[in-house]
Structures are given as structure tokens and as C-alpha cells.
């Protein structure tokens, strides 16, 4: 060993310390970046004490767990927030605009009218309540369908975003692979790839597999390939507009359709599956229930002919298929959008409201109060009875199939709120899990500024020692040079 090599080693120590300090300062800089994994500059003994190998803190297990939690939360969150929006736009605050509430009002108005059937004001009042029922059903239908249209557009945006993220992933993955092959520091590329994966996990649940050279293969949890060397295409064609009965287009990932989730605490994972569940599951069932309520209304208020001579015909509430009645116990898709007040009865359309009391909206053959007696209440009372009498509903609409119209309409709210509660509870739980796993991951891989600061103290010491060494060697050489005269 010689003074020169002592100088050399001290120099390389200073260089290492500088490099380590730059890592520390980078760690501190990125302390609040959730996608940043802490780097450690580890000195390795190679000839001449080369420095510094950069190691990146990582925890594959926690990362995967976090990805899974993120997917589950995003699927659940999309469902839950969608159901909140649906609740407000369709049922309103405290169910104020729900068909059940409107139906209750109609029942009350009908009751009052039946007590004083001669009172034309009460007839108008009843008609008004009926108009309200029609409006909730019509508005509900258009709100449901526009909700589906919006969900469809959101799916289109999400698939576009997913394709973009997959392209990002390709760039990040290429950087990782080439960096690994050439032995460069790939920490930044890994950070970027992990961050992209987290974002992808928001849209679809993913599982990853790392092959040689850190090359990553990403597939969805059910096995559709998302990324292998190159991104696979995620294709989706949005529908321009939705009407009841319109079937939404599938989202294809590498040619395999994404399946929709089921249940309030949904098994849908990732935002896309959650939105498909809203578009093709929740809203479709809700529309079916609205259609069944509309069908129940038409049949409860159907006009009969005295003695059963003529077939029943739509009375206060009518539809496009009038004068036929919708088939018993069978769902008519889109009926809630078609239901109207009978123009023969609706005073706003030039009809006679007292036909409700007397019968005969469909012609003389249906008149019950032949004498035109002003206080004839039998028909009105029978309408009231029929609202409360059990009838058969199509099980396709997802509710117990034999109950009264009044109960069915509240059961619809019950069905929806049960789903909404499950969705909200699930979202809470899954959010907590996502937050918790992110926290655990951050604890495992993130930066603690205090620790970096104490490391910095070490580095300062080492730097000071090295520079002291250099000064000593310098003094020794100076002494030698003084000796040369």
C-alpha cells in the first residue's frame, strides 16, 4: 500500500458518500410520493471499494395484496357511488319521488274521493295523484336509461384509459427489461411500472407473473391476457343511447368478454366490471320492477264491463298496446316508459274525470254507474281494493312474485336499498382494506424521513473522515516535498 492508493481510496470513499447522499436526498424528495419505493445505497466490496449498488425496497406479497384490494375497492366503489346517484335521481331524498310514495298518495286521494264521489275537486285531486304516479314511472324510466347511457360512456372512457395505461406499461416494462439486462439501476422504471400497475388495477383486477429479465406478464384475474411483450387490445363500442331492453355491448379484453358482478357486496373487481354491473344488472332489474309496477297499475285500474260481456280494457292508466291489456304475470319491457293517463279520463287532455267514478272510458259497454248517480262509490272502492289485493308479478324482476301492488312498490325500494346498503357497507370495508394494504405497503417500502436523516448523519461522518484522511496524506506529501531542496 502506498500514499497514492490511500489517496485513491479516500477519493472513492468521498465519491461513494456523495452518491449515497444523493440517494438519501432523493428518498427525502420522494417521501410523499406513494409510488416511490425507498432506495438504499449499499456499498459493496469490489476491487477499489466500488461503491454503491442501489437496492430498491419491495414487497411482492403486499404489493399484490394492495393491487387486489385496489381492484376490489374500485369495483365496489363504482357500484356504490352509482347506486347513490341512482337513489337520488330516481327515489329522491327519503324516497320522495319513488313510485311507492306516489302510489300511496294516489291511494289517499282515491279514498278521499270515494267518500265524496260527487265532489269534482276530489276527482281532479285523484287525477293529479295518478298523474304524479305516471310521472314518477316515466321520469324514472328516462332517468334509468340516461344513467345507463352515462355508464356506457364511462365504460368507453375507462377502456380508452385502460388501453393508454397498457401502452404506458409497455414503455415502463421495456425500460425495466433492458435495464435489467444491462445491469443498470432500474428502480425508477420499476417504480413507474408498479405505479402503472396500480392504476390498471383500478380498472380491472390483475394478476402478474414475472419471467426472465424482470419481464412482466399481466393478465386479468380470470385469465384474460392483458400484457405480454405487447399490450392486448381492450375493445368496447359504446351505444349512442339506451332504451329499456337495449342490451349493452360487451367489453372484450383480448377477445374475452368481461363478466358483470353480482350482489350488493359485489364480486365485481375493478371499475369496468362495477360499471357493467350498474349498466346491465342493477338498472335493468330496476327497470323491470318499474315495468311491473306500471303493469300492476294498468291492471288494477282496468275497466270491466258489467256482467263480463266485454274483455277488460285499460282504465285510468293506459299504454301503447291499448285497448288490449298487458298479459297477466308477464313482464312487458319498457312499460313504465309507455304508461299514460287515459285521455278519456284526463281532464288535461279533454277527458272527463268522472268516468273514473262511473266507468266507461272505453265506451258505454263499460259504464257501471248507468244512472250517473253523483255519489256512486263502488268502482272507486274497488280500485282501492285492487291496489291492496295480491296479484302475480313476473319473477324476472327479482322480487317475490305474489304481493299487492302497494307492497310490490315498497318491496322495490326495499330491494334497492338492501343492495345499496350492501354496496355501501362493502365499499367501506373494501376502502379500509385498500387503505390498510397501501399503508402496510408504504411502511414496508416507503421512506421514513427521520431514518434518512440519521443515515445522513452517518454519511456526514464518513465524508468528514475521508476528507481528514486526504488532508493527512496531503500533509505527508508536503512534508516530503519540503525535504526536497
Amino acid at each position, binding site marked *: 500500500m502506498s500514499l497514492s492508493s490511500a489517496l485513491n481510496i479516500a477519493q472513492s470513499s468521498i465519491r461513494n458518500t456523495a452518491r449515497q447522499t444523493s440517494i438519501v436526498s432523493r428518498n427525502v424528495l420522494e417521501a410523499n410520493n406513494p409510488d416511490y419505493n425507498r432506495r438504499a445505497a449499499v456499498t459493496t466490496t469490489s476491487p477499489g471499494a466500488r*461503491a454503491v449498488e442501489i437496492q430498491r425496497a419491495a414487497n411482492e406479497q403486499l404489493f399484490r395484496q394492495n393491487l387486489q384490494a385496489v381492484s376490489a375497492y374500485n369495483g365496489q366503489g363504482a357500484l356504490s357511488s352509482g347506486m347513490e346517484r341512482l337513489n337520488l335521481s330516481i327515489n329522491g331524498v327519503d324516497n320522495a319521488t319513488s313510485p311507492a310514495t306516489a302510489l300511496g298518495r294516489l291511494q289517499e286521494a282515491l279514498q278521499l274521493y270515494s267518500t265524496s264521489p260527487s265532489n269534482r275537486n276530489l276527482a281532479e285531486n285523484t287525477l293529479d295523484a295518478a298523474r304524479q304516479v305516471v310521472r314518477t314511472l316515466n321520469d324514472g324510466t328516462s332517468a334509468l336509461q340516461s344513467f345507463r347511457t352515462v355508464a356506457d360512456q364511462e365504460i368507453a372512457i375507462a377502456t380508452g384509459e385502460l388501453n393508454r395505461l397498457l401502452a404506458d406499461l409497455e414503455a415502463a416494462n421495456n425500460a425495466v427489461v433492458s435495464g435489467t439486462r444491462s445491469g443498470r439501476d432500474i428502480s425508477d422504471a420499476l417504480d413507474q411500472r408498479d405505479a402503472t400497475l396500480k392504476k390498471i388495477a383500478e380498472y380491472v383486477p390483475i394478476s402478474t407473473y414475472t419471467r426472465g429479465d424482470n419481464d412482466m406478464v399481466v393478465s386479468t384475474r380470470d385469465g384474460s391476457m392483458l400484457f405480454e411483450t405487447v399490450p392486448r387490445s381492450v375493445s368496447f363500442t359504446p351505444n349512442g343511447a339506451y332504451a329499456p331492453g337495449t342490451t349493452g355491448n360487451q367489453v372484450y379484453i383480448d377477445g374475452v368478454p368481461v363478466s358483470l358482478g353480482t350482489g350488493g357486496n359485489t364480486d365485481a373487481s375493478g371499475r369496468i366490471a362495477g360499471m357493467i354491473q350498474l349498466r346491465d344488472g342493477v338498472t335493468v332489474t330496476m327497470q323491470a320492477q318499474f315495468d311491473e309496477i306500471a303493469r300492476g297499475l294498468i291492471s288494477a285500474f282496468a275497466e270491466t264491463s258489467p256482467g263480463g260481456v266485454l274483455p277488460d280494457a285499460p282504465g285510468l292508466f293506459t299504454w301503447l298496446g291499448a285497448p288490449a291489456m298487458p298479459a297477466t304475470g308477464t313482464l312487458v319491457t319498457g312499460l313504465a316508459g309507455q304508461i299514460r293517463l287515459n285521455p278519456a279520463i284526463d281532464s288535461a287532455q279533454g277527458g272527463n274525470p268522472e268516468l273514473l267514478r262511473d266507468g266507461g272510458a272505453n265506451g258505454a259497454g263499460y259504464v257501471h254507474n248507468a244512472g250517473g248517480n253523483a255519489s256512486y262509490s263502488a268502482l272507486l272502492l274497488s280500485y282501492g281494493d285492487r291496489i291492496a289485493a295480491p296479484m302475480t308479478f313476473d319473477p324476472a324482476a327479482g322480487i317475490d312474485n305474489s304481493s299487492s301492488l302497494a307492497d310490490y312498490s315498497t318491496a322495490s325500494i326495499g330491494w334497492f336499498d338492501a343492495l345499496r346498503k350492501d354496496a355501501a357497507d362493502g365499499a367501506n370495508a373494501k376502502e379500509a382494506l385498500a387503505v390498510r394494504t397501501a399503508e402496510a405497503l408504504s411502511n414496508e417500502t416507503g421512506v421514513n424521513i427521520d431514518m434518512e436523516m440519521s443515515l445522513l448523519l452517518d454519511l456526514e461522518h464518513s465524508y468528514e473522515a475521508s476528507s481528514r484522511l486526504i488532508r493527512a496524506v496531503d500533509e505527508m506529501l508536503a512534508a516530503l516535498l519540503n525535504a526536497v531542496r
Partner: protein
Amino acid sequence: MSLYGMMRTGVSGMNAQANRLSTVADNIANSGTTGYKRSSTEFSSLIIPSTTGNYTSGGVTTTIRTSISQQGDLKYTSSGSDLAINGDGFFVVQNSSGTPYLTRAGSFVPDGEGRLVNAAGFYLMGYSFAAGPPSATANGFGGLEMVSIAQEELIAVPSTQGVFTANLPVGADVVVPGNLPSANAATATSTQKTSLVVYDNLGSEVMLDIHYAKTGPNTWEIAVFDQAGAAPGAPFPYAPGSLLATSTLTFDGTTGALTAPLAGVDIPVPNGGTFNLDISKMTQLGTDYTQLKVEANGNAPSGIESIEIGSDGTMYAQYKNGSFRELYRIPLANVQSPDMLRALPGNVYTPSADSGDLQMGFPGSGGLGSMVSGALENSNVDIAEELTAMIESQRSYTAKSKVFQTGADLMDILVNLKR
């Protein structure tokens, strides 16, 4: 004995110290030269035969030694083409007229033609991978060529082999024969579908759609399609001719391991070679579809992005798509007695009669050192040592001049005897 003899002895001593000071001057001047090896002087006495009672002073002869085998410290740099040898051995370089030399000065940079040239203007030599992995010629410079990174711009490698390992769910529904993927009907369904990128002869990407469909309790069908023929959205039906290969997988009902075909599935890649997909590790167990291994070789054409040199002297070209290819292998040369090599300007050495025969080998093998990329070898001069040598020389020179002066004084006295 003679006064003249004594004076000449003093002069020879002064000459010897002058030589020594010259080496010190050289050493100090080159203390920062990469790959420089310090020179030193060794003295030996020259004795003239003398009789009893009569001493005839002789002289001192100087031999110059160069400490070639003493390694200098490694200094790390940020250039990947800077090379250092950690251990024994020399780079083989040649000058512009084609004469080969040995050197430890590895500060190579590409010149205008892509050849790696060091500060003294010598070109690095290596064995090319053009005709397969090279082997070193044992004792000569045969087969060596100048290392150049300008060539081999675009390279494509067609895929020939791949591995696909996954678990197929045992509980999956059986697909009726008419709907099997191989039937390619519009109603065809597969139990699982995945895809894999392979490369044809020209290096174009070909996406293979791989469908698995359960046909019976322990049998599955694998059908491989060219994804270019897929219907938009749902893959089925593919355009005619898109079915590349189909095979029946049979699993052991007890262990769930694949029993046939263990040789893999041969897939004729469109415009490419036969791609053998190894599926021998596939299983059929009672869990979900899980992909465990998806690999295929081959790469698309792309230009060289950078050059990497491994510790075994292999020089890789790294292409823009991230793939690697060996271009050259850089050998190290050594001789029996490196210190006896003849030093020439530019820190190069050439074998001399005393140094022994030239031996070629690859870094890290046969007693040769390893190659360190991104580092340079400092000169092995220690300033302190040189300075002390200088002081010592100076004193020694003064002493010798005193001897000469004494001789001259005595001569004066002698001459003055005759008046």
C-alpha cells in the same frame, strides 16, 4: 590501483544516479497516465580483478526495470467502454498500420467508424461472434479483428421455442363438439383463452390466440389461431386458414399432470418457422385458471442502443427493444514474464525474447484477471516513493561527486609535486 580509476568509478556512480533520477522524472511525469507502469533502476557492481594489496576500483552498471506486473488502483468512471483488467493479462490492441501490441490502458472510445480506440490511438481487438461463439487461439493473434460497434444494425430472430404453463380448472363445463374452438363456428366457445407474441422470419410480431376447451373428464383441446384473422370483438369465427395447430391434451386423473403430448405443440408461425410450445408442465387441478409461465424466444429487428461488456470479456449489443446479442469476445494476452516485456510509446508492450511466449485466453480463465467495465487502471506510481528515491539519489550523487572531487584534489597534489 589508480586515481583515474577511482575518479571513473565516481563518474559511473554519478551516471547511475542520473539514470535513476531520469526514471523518477519519468515516473512523476506519468503518475497520472492510465495504464502507465513505473520504471525503476537496479544497480549492479562492476569489479575489476585485483591482486592482493592492490585494489582497482570498478564501477556500477544500471539496469532499468519496468514494474509491468504490478497492478495499479482501479479508478471508476462513467463510461461503459472504459475497461480495466483486475488481475493479470493485457488487452490486445493494434496501431493503425496493423501491428499488434499489448496494453493495460483501457480508455477506449468509439471512433468515427465505430472502432474502439484508446487515448494512445491503439485499436481494441476481439473475436467476433459472427460465426458462432469464438474460442481463443492459444498462442497468437490469429482470428482477432478490430472491435467495431457500427455493424449489425438490425437483427431479427424468429421464434422457435416457447413455454406455456397454466392450470386448467378441472371443474369447467365440457364444450360440445360443434362448439369447439377447432370447429371455428360463430358459436364456438373456449373454456380459457390466452395469447402469446411470437416473431416471424422478418421479425414481425405475430399474435397467437391459444384456446383451451374441455372436451371430456380428463381431456382438453388446445387450438392455436393467428389473431390477425379474429372477428372484431369476439374472436370467433376466425378467417379461414387462421387455425394454426390443434391438439388434444390428456391429463392424469389422479395427479392432474399432463400425460400427452409431452413433446409440446408444433405451431407453424405464418411467414416463420415452426414454433414449439412446451406445455408439458400444464396441470388440471381443482382451482381456477392460473397462468404460471408464459415465454417465447425471438425478437423483432431493432438498432443497437448501447454496448455492454461483461466481466468475462463478452461484448453485448443491447438493442432498442431491450434484447441482447453478443458481438465480440475480448481476449486477454499474457506472457510468462510480463516485467520483461518491451515497453513502447503509448503504454504498449511487445513481447521480447526474455518475456516468454504469448498466451491468449479469456478474462477470468486460466489465471487471467477479470475485465471491469467502467473503470480504468491508474498508473502504479507512488509519488512519495519517487520523491524519497529522488532525495536518496540526490544524496548519493553528492557523495559520488565528493569521491570524484577527492580524486581530482589528489591529482592536483600529485601534479604539484613536480615543480
